[in-house]
């Protein structure tokens, strides 16, 4: 095919000048080579800037931890595949791929990881908060059931976010933790509180930081499953903007209206409670199982064999 596939350019600053822009130019720009057209060449710095985003972590501890985890996961998957080839042949029901089922199915991997001496790495990553180099490793370990995980670890991470001045992020992170725990209304209360603080523009005040820090500290020490937890969170959340305090004993203040707050998230902006366990994820992928993008699955989507597309 001829490389010349002229596409009219647009004149600079309203000039009437038009330049041709060939397919060669397009490929050159995308691959970081100098294009023929001066018009296309002006994209060079922008594309270089884009390309610079492709820098993942090279932190040695992160790379080593991920390599260990991936190696063990692949070994266990291979063993599992050999054991259950008949079961894998069955079409997966969209409902069978819940996160919890995945964790259960990887119980063997957990045992192997524990015996493979990865406990130290997992423990090192366990204290990481969002934004830390090891945080993605921490989450990856948790995904296969290694490390504490769960709401208390998420809440500890939220506390670190508050310490770093990231109040909005901390509240949403805590909300995610509670939602994962099945407490949709408390989660919604935190989201609503975050919305309120953002609307007030008060999320950066030292006072709000202190209140959020205190609330999260309390949450991380409280019984998440306790009967009073939801009401207490709602009450705390409402008090974050200064309109409702808390009791001196460290428990949330009781303004008398907190009992009505069990579902306050229903009316909050963005506070629609979701069903616990992220059941809405069922059927979210074309395969109906977001985690089972096996090569055979994708053969219809892309050429696993070269030349197929």
């Amino acid at each position, binding site marked *: 095919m001829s490389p010349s596939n002229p*596409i009219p350019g*647009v004149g*600079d*600053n309203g000039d009437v000048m038009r330049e041709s*822009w060939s397919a060669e130019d*397009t490929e050159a*720009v*995308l691959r970081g080579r100098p294009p023929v057209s001066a*018009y296309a060449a002006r*994209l060079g710095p*922008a594309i270089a*800037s*884009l*390309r*610079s*985003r*492709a*820098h*993942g972590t090279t932190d040695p501890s992160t*790379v*080593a931890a*991920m*390599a*260990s985890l*991936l*190696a063990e*996961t*692949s*070994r266990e*998957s*291979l063993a599992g*595949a050999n054991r259950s080839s008949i079961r894998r042949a069955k079409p997966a029901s969209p409902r069978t791929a819940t996160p919890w089922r995945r964790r259960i199915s990887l119980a063997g991997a957990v045992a192997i990881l524990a015996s493979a001496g990865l406990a130290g790495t997992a423990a090192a990553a366990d204290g990481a908060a969002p934004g830390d180099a090891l945080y*993605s490793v921490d989450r*990856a370990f948790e*995904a296969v059931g290694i490390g504490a995980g769960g709401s208390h670890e998420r809440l500890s991470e939220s506390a670190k976010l508050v310490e770093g001045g990231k109040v909005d992020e901390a509240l*949403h992170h805590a909300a995610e933790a509670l939602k994962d725990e099945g407490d949709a209304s408390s989660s919604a209360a935190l*989201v609503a509180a975050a919305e309120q603080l*953002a609307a007030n523009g008060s999320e950066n005040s030292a006072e709000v930081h202190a209140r959020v820090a205190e609330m999260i500290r309390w949450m991380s020490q409280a019984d998440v499953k306790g009967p009073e937890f939801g009401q207490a969170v709602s009450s705390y959340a409402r008090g974050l903007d200064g309109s409702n305090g808390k009791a001196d004993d460290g428990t949330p203040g009781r303004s008398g209206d907190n009992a009505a707050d069990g579902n306050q998230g229903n009316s909050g*902006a963005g506070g629609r409670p*979701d069903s616990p366990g*992220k059941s*809405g*994820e069922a059927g*979210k*992928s*074309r395969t109906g199982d*977001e*985690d*089972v*993008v*096996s*090569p*055979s699955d*994708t053969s219809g*989507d*892309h*050429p*696993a*064999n070269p030349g197929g*597309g």
Partner: protein
Amino acid sequence: MTLGEPFAAILAAARTGEEWAWEALYRDLVGPVTGYLASRGAAEPEDLASETFLQVARGLAGFEGDEPAFRSWVFVIAHRRMQDARRAAARRPRRADADADEALATLGAAGSVEDDAIGSLRDERLAAALERLSDAHREVLALRVVGDLSVADAASVMGKSPGAIKVLQHRALRALREALDESE
């Protein structure tokens, strides 16, 4: 960057759970995958990248193909992870917008700590220009430039023909060029 000729041996070793092989695969792809996820608006691209690699590790036993096919497969998984994350974020409307804005801002950022004034200005303009592009245009640029995928591989990920990708990337660049002009 690709692994080239040693890829087949590395893949075979990874299949049997060799740590060094996984380190090679991870090092090679973590940058493009994380960059791709970040550029597509993922709020936590590192997490999604880790999940992507875990899924690759789980599914590698059934994978057959060469390096381009492998890269394409990895990005298909990353793409689906990103879509899942978007759906989850859509349940939090304000956060979804905030995440997208943040991703656009970081997409335009050079990622360099030096951050000189000229660079910052250029990055701001780039972020603003990218914001004007359609989602498909941003997707194809992310796959081709940040993900460093070939036309065929990008076509696989986006579920389009290579010809359609060529047209799309051409239009995306032209739209970016025009948007940059307008932001001057």
